[in-house]
């Protein structure tokens, strides 16, 4: 019974138990304990993986189609497993208190969360291509279960996700079959050994199919339409879990297959016929577009949850870009961004759902001034948006700085500029988020709104605290990243506790954040000592051009927060990709109708007979396939 | 300035159609028309329709306490004829009611509302006779000659007899302006 077995067994049992007794009052607390134990198990597995070659094997080895399936978790899988169990712990904590009392379908929420964790662990510890595919299917299916709980538009969004996921899965399955046909085995090592011998056309085919299949889950640009509604309409903590972890399974698969097995080096040798660009640069430009386009779509959202999920897609682009740079700094940046993103995105989504829990709406035009009623939720959201925008005191800045530095060192300025434009768009939309919810005039009906309950505040603030801690001491996160980087076969990045020292420019966050805290302390000293004491006034004691303010006139600016920008880039939102998707759907539908029409004609058995005859004749022709 | 020589004749033809109307050309391009209260709307209609007196620039009201009458003056200007007609009508102060000409000239709505607030004249059919400028005024219509402005001022703003010594010695030296 290896550690991996223990982990998988524990999460399977939890799934069954929680699905059965999820309605129990402290099912959430049980979930917290279980996920804490799971995280402990994962950390315990770190020992043998540190050098990058070791792997914790599992004794469970069923035989399928004459091939032995194997499960073993290496450094890369370990890294994402740590992320998954950690996120599940905080999600379960969020669901344990007052939140739970109000939910109609507690049992399903707890059950699906545990199921998702189990399926993800299964995927992350896959030993060969077949088990990878099985794990991949389980994860897609479990995510569908979690998304479709609330019915109506949530179910529609989940169904749309299922279509994308199935298409992706078919692509991956086709690629695996091609590998089986070419190399004759599903094992990772065989594929890795056989890749240099493959022809360029076949490499392009594998790159296309694997890239497409895994890219769908990561929602890179052409396939990004399903993620925002699917993740937003999932209830509460599950949405936070999906946002933080679920899309990263695609990144894990890309890293595993394209990075470790096929290798980014081989990708960069595949030159495109006409354009001076190779496969890796093509994928990098796709990642760059994934950074910019969803961020500017997020800018125009009016629902807080949609805004955050669109940002999730954008941030996925950063991770992919970082990893694809393939230098030690770039890979470390991409992997660290995975951790950083999980911490601040989860804090943000949990904070938004706390606001929904109290005010009943997430519509940015219906809120305002909640800082006076929910200060701690405001604090969690503030630290989250500083991380999401990538500004110094928080960890988001460190990984973004490393991505920029790696792009600078590999002489790719245009990608850096695309990344920076994405950051600017993020800063604009996160300020719109925090302003429309917490700042400005408090609405009349929100006068008596209370602060979010303790069980919801604690996970948010701890996640934000983790964000600040890894921002202040990036060495902590970089230590975890080293394990995954070693498994990827990329040489490790020399780093101290404070940050990275390079010849062409270094970053020491201990100095940067330390000086910031000192300087802000000096600002506080100047504020409190020089000048008379402050006197707080209420929101109606405000300049309104001589008008006497009162609550029945709404003196607040939040609708269409960036009118100038909207007037200029409004026409760009023609939804060309949405039209493409609709076009695809209509094409499939008409093809289906055509096919259906052909069969409805009366004497269908005649056609069957003809088809059968042709089949037999062909089979007989050359002695079978 | 061209003297509209042909004007009185063409106006005469029109005005004969309306009973009780007297016209006296004033200096320059102004014509004063005295009409009876009930024929005023017809007069304005005719002026506007036939002679192009489109622009009702103002309605002024004069309070005659001796004859207990309000005199309403409608100033209408014609861009074609380039001349101004002032139609004078006098109504009795007591009921202080008159018909509204809003349907002929829309700006009349505001002028009537203003006169209603300042003089208390009720214009029947005027769209909106609510408080106009003196939003927080609950006293009598202030422009009436019967309203004692000075008394109101002394009582509201508290008149203070102000005779400082410097003012007395300036007046002693024969007013402020030194020779």
């Amino acid at each position, binding site marked *: 019974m290896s550690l991996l077995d223990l982990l998988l067994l524990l999460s399977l049992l939890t799934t069954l138990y929680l699905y059965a007794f999820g309605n129990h009052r402290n099912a959430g607390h049980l979930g917290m304990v279980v996920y804490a134990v799971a995280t402990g198990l994962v950390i315990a597995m770190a020992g043998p993986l540190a050098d990058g070659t070791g792997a914790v094997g599992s004794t469970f080895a069923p035989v399928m189609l004459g091939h032995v399936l194997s499960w073993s978790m290496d450094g890369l899988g370990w890294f994402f497993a740590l992320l998954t169990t950690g996120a599940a712990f905080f999600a379960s904590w969020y669901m344990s208190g007052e939140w739970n009392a109000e939910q109609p379908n507690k049992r399903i929420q707890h059950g699906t969360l545990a199921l998702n964790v189990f399926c993800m662990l299964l995927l992350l510890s896959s030993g060969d291509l077949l088990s990878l595919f099985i794990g991949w299917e389980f994860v897609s299916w479990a995510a569908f279960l979690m998304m479709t709980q609330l019915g109506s538009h949530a179910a529609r969004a989940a169904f749309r996700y299922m279509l994308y996921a199935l298409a992706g899965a078919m692509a991956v399955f086709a690629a695996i079959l091609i590998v089986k046909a070419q190399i004759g085995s599903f094992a990772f090592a065989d594929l890795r050994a056989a890749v240099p011998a493959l022809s360029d056309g076949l490499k392009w085919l594998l790159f296309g199919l694997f890239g497409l299949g895994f890219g769908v889950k990561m929602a890179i640009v052409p396939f990004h339409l399903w993620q925002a509604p699917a993740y937003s309409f999932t209830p509460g903590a599950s949405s936070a879990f999906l946002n933080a972890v679920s899309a990263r399974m695609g990144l894990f698969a890309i890293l595993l297959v394209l990075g470790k097995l096929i290798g980014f080096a081989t990708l960069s040798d595949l030159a495109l016929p006409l354009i001076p660009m190779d496969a890796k640069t093509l994928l990098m430009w796709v990642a760059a577009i994934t950074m910019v386009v969803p961020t500017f779509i997020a800018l125009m959202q009016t629902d807080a949850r949609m805004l955050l999920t669109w940002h999730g897609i954008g941030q996925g682009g950063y991770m992919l870009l970082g990893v694809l740079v393939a230098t030690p700094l770039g890979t470390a940046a991409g992997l660290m961004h995975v951790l950083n993103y999980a911490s601040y995105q989860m804090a943000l989504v949990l904070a938004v759902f706390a606001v929904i829990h109290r005010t009943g709406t997430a519509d940015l035009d219906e809120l305002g*001034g909640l*800082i006076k009623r929910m*200060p701690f939720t405001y604090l969690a959201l503030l630290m989250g948006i*500083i991380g999401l*925008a990538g*500004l*110094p*005191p928080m960890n988001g800045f460190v990984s973004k*700085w490393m991505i920029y530095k790696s792009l*600078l060192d590999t*002489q790719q*300025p245009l990608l850096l500029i695309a990344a*920076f434009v994405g950051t*600017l*768009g993020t*800063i*604009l939309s996160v*300020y*719109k988020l*925090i*302003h429309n919810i917490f*700042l400005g005039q*408090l609405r009349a009906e929100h006068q008596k709104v209370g602060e979010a309950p303790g069980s919801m505040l604690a996970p948010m603030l701890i996640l934000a605290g983790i964000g600040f801690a890894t921002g202040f001491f990036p060495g902590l996160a970089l230590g975890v990243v080293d394990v995954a980087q070693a498994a990827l076969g990329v040489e490790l990045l020399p780093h101290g506790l404070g940050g990275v020292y390079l010849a062409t*420019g*270094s*970053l*020491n966050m201990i100095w*940067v954040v330390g*000086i*910031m805290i000192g*300087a*802000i*302390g*000096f*600002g*506080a000293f*100047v*504020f409190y000592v020089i*000048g*008379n*004491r*402050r*006197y*707080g*006034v209420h929101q109606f*004691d*405000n*300049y*309104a051009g001589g008008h006497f303010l009162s609550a029945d006139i709404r*003196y*607040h*600016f*939040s609708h269409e*927060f*960036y*009118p*100038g*920008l909207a*007037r*200029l880039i409004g026409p760009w939102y023609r939804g060309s990709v949405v039209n493409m998707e609709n076009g695809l759907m209509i094409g499939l539908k008409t093809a289906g109708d055509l096919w259906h029409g052909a069969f409805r004609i009366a004497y269908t058995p005649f056609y069957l007979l003809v088809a059968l005859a042709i089949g037999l004749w062909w089979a007989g022709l050359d002695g079978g396939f | 300035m061209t003297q509209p020589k042909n004007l009185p004749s063409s106006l005469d033809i029109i005005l004969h159609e309306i009973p009780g109307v007297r016209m006296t050309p004033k200096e320059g391009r102004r014509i004063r028309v005295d009409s009876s209260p009930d024929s005023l709307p017809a007069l304005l209609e005719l002026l506007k329709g036939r002679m192009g007196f489109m622009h009702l620039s103002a309605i002024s009201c004069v309070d005659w306490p001796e004859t207990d009458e309000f005199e309403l003056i409608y100033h209408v200007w014609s861009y074609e004829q380039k001349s101004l007609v002032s139609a004078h009508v006098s109504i009795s102060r007591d009921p202080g009611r008159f018909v509204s000409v809003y349907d002929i000239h829309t700006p009349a709505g505001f002028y009537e509302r203003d006169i209603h607030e300042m003089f208390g004249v009720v214009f029947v059919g005027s769209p909106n006779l609510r408080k106009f400028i003196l939003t927080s005024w609950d006293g009598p219509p202030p422009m009436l000659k019967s309203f004692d402005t000075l008394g109101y001022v002394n009582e509201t703003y508290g008149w203070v007899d102000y005779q400082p010594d410097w003012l007395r010695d300036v007046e002693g030296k024969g007013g402020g302006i030194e020779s």
Partner: protein
Amino acid sequence: MVEIANPGMLELVVDLVLMPIVAFVVGLALVLMARRVRAKIERRVGPPFLQPVYDIVKLYSKRTQISHGWMHDVAIMLLLGGFITAEIFLPVPGMSGLAEHGDLLTLIYIMMVPMLGMALGVGDCANPNGSIGISRALTAMLAYDVPYIIAVVGACMVYGTSNLVEIVQIQQAGGPATWGIVTMPLLAIAGLISMHGMLGKEPFEIYIAPAEIATGPMVEMSGKYMGALFVMQCFQLYTVGVLYTTLFLGGGEMWLTFLPKVFAVILVFVAITNLFGRLRTEDVIAWMWKWPTGIALLGLLLVMIDV
């Protein structure tokens, strides 16, 4: 050659204290120059020598200080703290402070912290004039930061490093021939225009806009809050001037040659400011994304060809 000794603790502490003070004093002089130049253009005498000091002392010595909430106060602390941190990471002649520990990209982000702090504080003032001002300020930031980042990236590629101290050393070692403005003129022009946008002066003054939104973010600032904004203006002028000089005008070896360059840069901005009206928000974005960005991309192309 500026010999950057390994900054012992004492010298570091001196740097930490001295750099913000120098920044504040030079900033005051820059603000005075800006107001005097504006006065001379309007054929006026202009304010006395100590006017910026009088304004700031008066604002801080107001008897009543109105605040709209704790975030309004924290914003003022973030404002000063952010700019003091930026000064410490900006190398000046004789004092390199902590520029070894954080490079140019870090500095760009540190300069965004006070902007975010002010935005949150103004949001807490619950006044729509302020919110509209901040929305316009962020839109303008989106506009002028595109050519700005292209210029900065181009500079980093030409110098081969993003460590500010080394950038200064390279330009000092090679003399005026290796100054940024000589090796990459197009990027220098784009940088100049974008930094002008950063100051929020006349052509790009959409977020102060006194006639439209009652001085935008400053609408509810009074007393020491307003004083902090005046101090921020000094720091902002100084930081923009020194950053431009460091990147494109060869940085400073000694103060006598360094300060004239900083004043010259700010003089260019102030001279242009008083000749223009105020552009609308979308015109600012359209203009900034067309001409400066075009020039910057052209400059970057040239840099990439021969790098």
